[in-house]
């Protein structure tokens, strides 16, 4: 039950994109096509889960015992950068098409604040390891949900006649605002 409430809270109530404002660069960057959105979501799910586990272990077994908590930001970002590099190498080998499609955004997962944000949130919320993993997966799913809904809508935007000044990013942002308004309707489902 506890895990279910973590999942519902992370996916709907406190959606990482629409209410926490994390991971907006890839959210706007790769949401033009549904297929790239799905690929990006997969990459984020994988990296976010791994990164949260590794950074949690580093926090618990290295930073806290040695009392060097101030190195949190530096050490976390290095671990995440290394992980992303690894995912990139694996993806290049396993699925060249996906690698082509995600292009420049894969290295940019390093600077996806959602990854570092979740890793730090887990520590701030004082979760244990299993809760942290569930939290990370749930947040990645929330990200995927937001990205996929949004890319589906953006594909429709291409064929709509939008006033000149609002074309492209401005109308997409306004649409994201309306989506965010919808997600606010979930507030209060779980305490």
């Amino acid at each position, binding site marked *: 039950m506890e895990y279910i409430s973590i999942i519902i809270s992370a996916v709907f109530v406190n959606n990482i994109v629409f209410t926490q*404002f*994390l991971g907006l660069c890839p959210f706007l960057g790769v949401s033009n096509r549904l297929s790239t959105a799905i690929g990006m979501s997969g990459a984020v799910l994988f990296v976010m889960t791994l990164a949260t586990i590794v950074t949690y272990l580093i926090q618990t077994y290295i930073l806290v015992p040695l009392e060097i908590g*101030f190195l949190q*930001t530096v050490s976390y970002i290095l671990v995440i950068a290394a992980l992303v590099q690894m995912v990139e190498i694996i993806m290049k080998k396993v699925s060249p098409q996906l690698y082509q499609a995600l292009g420049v955004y894969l290295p940019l997962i390093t600077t996806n604040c959602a990854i570092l944000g979740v890793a730090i949130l887990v520590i701030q919320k004082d979760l244990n390891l299993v809760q942290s993993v569930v939290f990370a997966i749930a947040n990645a799913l929330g990200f995927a949900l937001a990205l996929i809904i949004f890319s589906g809508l953006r594909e429709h935007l291409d064929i709509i006649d939008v006033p000149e000044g*609002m074309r492209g990013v401005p109308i997409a942002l306004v649409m994201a605002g309306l989506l965010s308004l919808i997600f*606010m309707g979930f507030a209060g489902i779980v305490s």
Partner: protein
Amino acid sequence: MNQWKNFTKGFLRENPVFILLLGLCPTLGVTTTAINGLGMGLATTFVLVMSNIVISLIKGVIPDKVRIPSFIVVIASFVTVVDLVMAGYAPALHAQLGLFIPLIVVNCIVLGRAEGFASKNNLITSLIDGLGMGFGFAFALTILGGARELLGSGALFGYKFIQGDGMLVFVLAPGAFIVLGYLIAIVRKINNKRAQT
């Protein structure tokens, strides 16, 4: 390059938020009031200037293959400095900005300027670029924060001059997206006008 042009490009022509669309997470996340926007903008400016300086100084020493991780370590060090200083001297602002202070590390603007500018230019040019981009970012955040504060609670920099509650939605998450969308449209319009004349 003309240094003055280099400095002013961050405000409208190459504004990191309105034109380049970088660093959107803190842009939307912290701009509930003009003060928060300004605080975040100045914190980012500090990191941007310092990391641009250091990176332009050490660019000859870093092997090409490990340059990105090295840049990130430099940036992360300055972010830690900002984080600790702010927690010590401005705890209220630090609590407001919260998670977004450590997240300056992953602000695309900082790494983008390090990789795209400071690693190719000399000290003075990089310094000015950092200042210009940083102020442009702070400018954008203050405008966005001000607009949301004004619409949402009828106040500006905490000074309330319209009675009543205002439209709460602009202080909440959806307002951030919607106001930014319209601001980008307005800035594009201005830039188009300037390009024509």
